[in-house]
């Protein structure tokens, strides 16, 4: 990729803060458009299969949202070096994803046509979002925006040949793919029907499961209906999606309302702040975290007071002794909990290579790893996976079920896992000093040292780091800095 193809040499730069793309970042309609684009992506058989196998969006949607957002922002950064680096990272990430779907058809996340489709859905959803909210884009703006998205694809692929050069040809291309190639894939169904009904609470609202569940019960079906109604008609017909009376009006109303926020003073809605706030973990020492922690604490106290004031059902009768389920000791979690929250990253109920790959991916993203460290980390995880498979997969189906895991927990901390910890330590220790200092620690955990960590002089030695990692991975200790890293939604 050269700077010429990315358009920075042009009179009006296609990237950077002036781009059309950036203009939508803080637009609430963008959230609806992104959901719609994701459904259209997932409906593509190749992408759908890759998503179903590898993606963590069902179990960790908020983390995934944050990563996607940051990645897109980097892809449209004004600095070509940042864009190039991010494109390289995405390419490496996609190169690790290939396999075959349930019907045995091969998929490959590096497939040119599939990647062009992802960019196409993003562009088309942005156009549609403006159309639906009664603020259609002019021909000039649309053409300019199309050029931006093609440049985005070119930054990834090296050239944008997979998308038609002319915007008029694009609409023909889009209709053809919707009509001929899209399918009612499992991934699309999961997004439409399962994701919103089971959306886990973001870190901010983690302490209030009841409140979250109540809000979700109301908003979830609504979001689903809005998204379905905004999909292209040929696809709705093909996938057998319901036509609900009033859904179209609801959808247009939602887009229109969200569009009104453009009259708010500039800076009132900032997508980055919102996303960061939602995914901020409570004990992070980000300056904003203090306010958020205070807010969370107040909400937690409110919830505690409500619980305490709720009248007890039935008065105490000394003779009827209800069976008391044993409460789990603090600081430890059950094997199932650990399996669900940490190990099973893709949420399919089984531990498989994509789960461990997702962990490696998350760690590599956090640490912003380059080659060859990234490959080294993946290799360590792959070795751990072979070790796990050999030790835990008793029925020989190639993956580890929650039961198989629960019966063999002690054998989890084998030499390969120790190797993972060591590679992670080396990757975190950027300056190779043999210890992790405050900055390096912060890059990994986005939080500062805590008193209870076995630290000396504000650095973290190799053995302490490895010990900590192992106790999280096998001792199943909660409340470690690894929790926000791997367990948070």
């Amino acid at each position, binding site marked *: 990729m050269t700077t010429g193809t990315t358009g920075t040499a042009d009179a009006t730069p296609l990237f950077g803060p002036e781009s059309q793309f950036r203009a939508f970042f803080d637009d609430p309609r963008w959230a609806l458009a992104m959901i719609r684009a994701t459904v259209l992506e997932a409906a593509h058989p190749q992408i759908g299969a890759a998503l179903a196998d590898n993606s963590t969006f069902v179990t960790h949607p908020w983390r995934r949202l944050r990563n996607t957002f940051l990645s897109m922002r980097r892809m449209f950064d004004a600095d070509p070096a940042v864009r190039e680096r991010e494109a390289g990272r995405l390419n490496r990430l996609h190169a690790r994803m290939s396999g075959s779907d349930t019907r045995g058809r091969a998929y490959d996340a590096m497939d040119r046509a599939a990647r062009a489709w992802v960019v196409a859905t993003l562009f088309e959803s942005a156009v549609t979002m403006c159309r639906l909210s009664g603020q259609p884009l002019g021909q000039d703006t649309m053409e300019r925006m199309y050029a931006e998205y093609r440049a985005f694809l070119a930054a990834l692929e090296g050239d944008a040949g997979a998308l038609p050069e002319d915007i008029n040809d694009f609409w023909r291309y889009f209709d053809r793919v919707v009509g001929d190639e899209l399918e009612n894939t499992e991934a699309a169904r999961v997004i439409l029907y399962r994701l919103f009904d089971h959306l886990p609470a973001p870190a901010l609202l983690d302490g209030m499961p009841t409140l979250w569940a109540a809000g979700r019960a109301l908003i979830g079906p609504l979001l689903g209906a809005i998204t379905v109604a905004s999909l292209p008609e040929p696809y709705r017909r093909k996938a057998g999606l319901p036509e609900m009376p009033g859904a179209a009006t609801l959808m247009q109303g939602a887009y229109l309302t969200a569009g009104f926020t453009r009259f708010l003073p500039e800076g009132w809605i900032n997508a980055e702040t919102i996303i960061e706030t939602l995914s901020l973990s409570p004990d992070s020492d980000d300056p904003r975290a203090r306010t958020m922690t205070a807010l969370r*604490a107040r909400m*937690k*106290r409110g*919830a*505690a*007071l409500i*619980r*305490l*004031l709720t009248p*007890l059902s039935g008065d*105490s009768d*000394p*003779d009827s*002794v*209800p069976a*008391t*389920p*044993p*409460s*789990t*000791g*603090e600081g430890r979690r059950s094997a199932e909990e650990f399996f669900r929250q940490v190990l099973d990253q893709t949420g399919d109920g089984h531990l498989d290579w994509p789960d461990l790959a997702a962990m490696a991916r998350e760690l590599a993203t956090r640490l912003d790893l380059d080659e060859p460290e990234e490959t080294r980390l993946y290799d360590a995880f792959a070795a751990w996976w072979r070790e796990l498979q050999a030790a835990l997969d008793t029925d020989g189906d190639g993956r580890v079920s929650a039961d198989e895991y629960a019966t063999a927990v002690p054998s989890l901390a084998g030499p390969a896992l120790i190797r993972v910890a060591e590679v992670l330590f080396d990757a975190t220790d950027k300056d190779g000093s043999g210890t992790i200092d405050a900055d390096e620690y912060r890059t990994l955990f986005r939080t500062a040292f805590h008193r*209870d960590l*076995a630290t000396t002089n504000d650095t973290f030695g190799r053995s302490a780091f490895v010990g900590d990692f192992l106790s999280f991975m096998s001792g199943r200790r909660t409340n470690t800095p690894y929790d926000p890293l791997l367990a948070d939604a």
Partner: protein
Amino acid sequence: MPRHVACVMDGNGRWAQIRSLPRTAGHRAAEATVIDVIEAARASGVEWLSLYAFSTENWNRPGSEVAYLMRLVRRVVRKHAPLLLARGIRCRFLGVADPRIPRELAQDFDDLATLTADNRGMTLTLAFDHGGRRDIVEAARSLIRSKTPADEVTERLFADHLPFPDTPDVDLVIRTSGEQRISNFMLWQVAYAEWVFPEALWPDFRAPDFLACLHTYRRRDRRFGGVPPQTNGALS
């Protein structure tokens, strides 16, 4: 004025026996004393108050009495939560580790502690399912886990590994009903405590009795193991 006062609430069962009532009635009557003592302690400027509500050994009592106690404590906690919050009392629960504690009760404990965590008035520590030796064992485990070299372990460092390390040493322990035993209560913290043993049973114990105990404490001559300056005889 003692900074940290602890009460061993003894005599509920005997109080009920004298009145030919079931033992559980004694526990029920204890509630009024608890509230009275909390008020009296707060009013007289005690900063830390600890109450021994349930020991690790109390699990050996008849199952029905234990179950009754669990429900009673739950009701009391919920009933007085708003009052404790309004009075600026910070509540915490020492112990509460046994899986036999009903989940709802543990949740209420957590809620009350969360609710009052920011209060800066008196700190009320309720020892529930507490054992002094267990705390010390836990601290030792925590020390070993943190890989502290043996030579570096000092009394102060050890105390940092006890539950609620910010708790100051107990200055005065009041054990009602005339019993004179420690019964495994906050063993580390009572090292230099003065003890008083009023004859009143806990349900009969009231604010004036509490103030009398404070008065007794003030007349005591606390030496912390040293030699009083005015004596010249042999002290063993």
